[in-house]
């Protein structure tokens, strides 16, 4: 049975959804408070769940990056451990430097909360290996600061290394401008392909009765 650590900061609000999702997929989960200095032993994945850590004060994720647990997460990732950051988790991972780029205020300044179709750009990684390349997934988004920015040279590197994983698109797979992200990027990974970040919420798309179960194959890839 796979064991998942789910981080909880003051203001995290997707920790229990994430716990529910991974337990439904047959995993053991542990919620880890941000003041902890070490991660639980023998875990297979760390998830930084969504929400508003420290009320998004200063910048989304800016204060959370100095929480004691983040030092342990950086060491874990440096040793090759798998880390997934969802929404606020993605923002924290860019602030802490485990992922390139930054997330800015949405271009229309709105908090956007809706189901959104995404295109799989690269499935040659643990996160999306159960998805097909160019597959269209229907996953909820809910964010005010999801406007992914990276400069031109950084973007080229992402592209060359196959780090661009997901793109906002319509149902036909054509790129769609949702929040102003560079080339409509919705999710990326690091060069070593063990740290993953995305704004959409796969943990909210695991039961078709609630609109979509496309999140299952995303999360399953990480525990397969």
């Amino acid at each position: 049975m796979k064991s998942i650590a789910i981080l909880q900061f003051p203001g995290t609000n997707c920790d229990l959804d994430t716990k529910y999702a991974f337990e439904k997929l047959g995993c053991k989960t542990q919620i880890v408070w941000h003041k902890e200095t070490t991660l639980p032993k023998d875990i297979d994945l760390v998830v930084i769940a969504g929400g508003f850590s420290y009320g998004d004060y200063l910048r989304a994720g800016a204060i959370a990056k100095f929480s004691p647990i983040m030092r342990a997460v950086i060491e874990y990732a440096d040793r090759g451990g798998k880390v997934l950051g969802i929404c606020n988790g993605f923002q924290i991972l860019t602030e802490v430097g485990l992922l390139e780029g930054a997330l800015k205020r949405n271009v229309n300044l709105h908090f956007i909360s809706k189901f959104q179709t995404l295109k799989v750009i690269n499935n040659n990684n643990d996160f999306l290996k159960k998805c097909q390349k160019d597959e269209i997934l229907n996953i909820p988004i809910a964010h005010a600061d999801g406007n992914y920015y990276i400069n031109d040279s950084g973007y080229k590197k992402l592209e060359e290394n196959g780090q661009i994983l997901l793109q906002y698109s319509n149902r036909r797979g054509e790129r769609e401008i949702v929040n102003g992200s560079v080339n409509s990027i919705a999710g990326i990974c690091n060069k070593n392909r063990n740290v993953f970040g995305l704004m959409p919420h796969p943990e909210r798309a695991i039961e078709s009765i609630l609109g979509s179960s496309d999140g299952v194959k995303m999360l399953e890839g990480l525990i397969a």
Partner: protein
Amino acid sequence: MRAIVNIFLKEGVLDPQGKAIHHALDAMNFEGVEDVRMGKQIVLKLSTTSKEKALEEVEKMAQEILANTVIEDYTIEIVE
């Protein structure tokens, strides 16, 4: 001694809040506004009396937490 840190999005990084303010000013018929950039100001009250030491410390703070240098530039002003 106080340090005033001004933080703005880098030139070339689209500033959606500045744009919205610009639109509002246009709608209110204020003329001659060519561009609007919105930033934030952080004012620190410091115990040190050395200007150099203050600048050095605040520079570190700006680099490490106050600004995200991927998208933001900052200026530091030390006032007695």
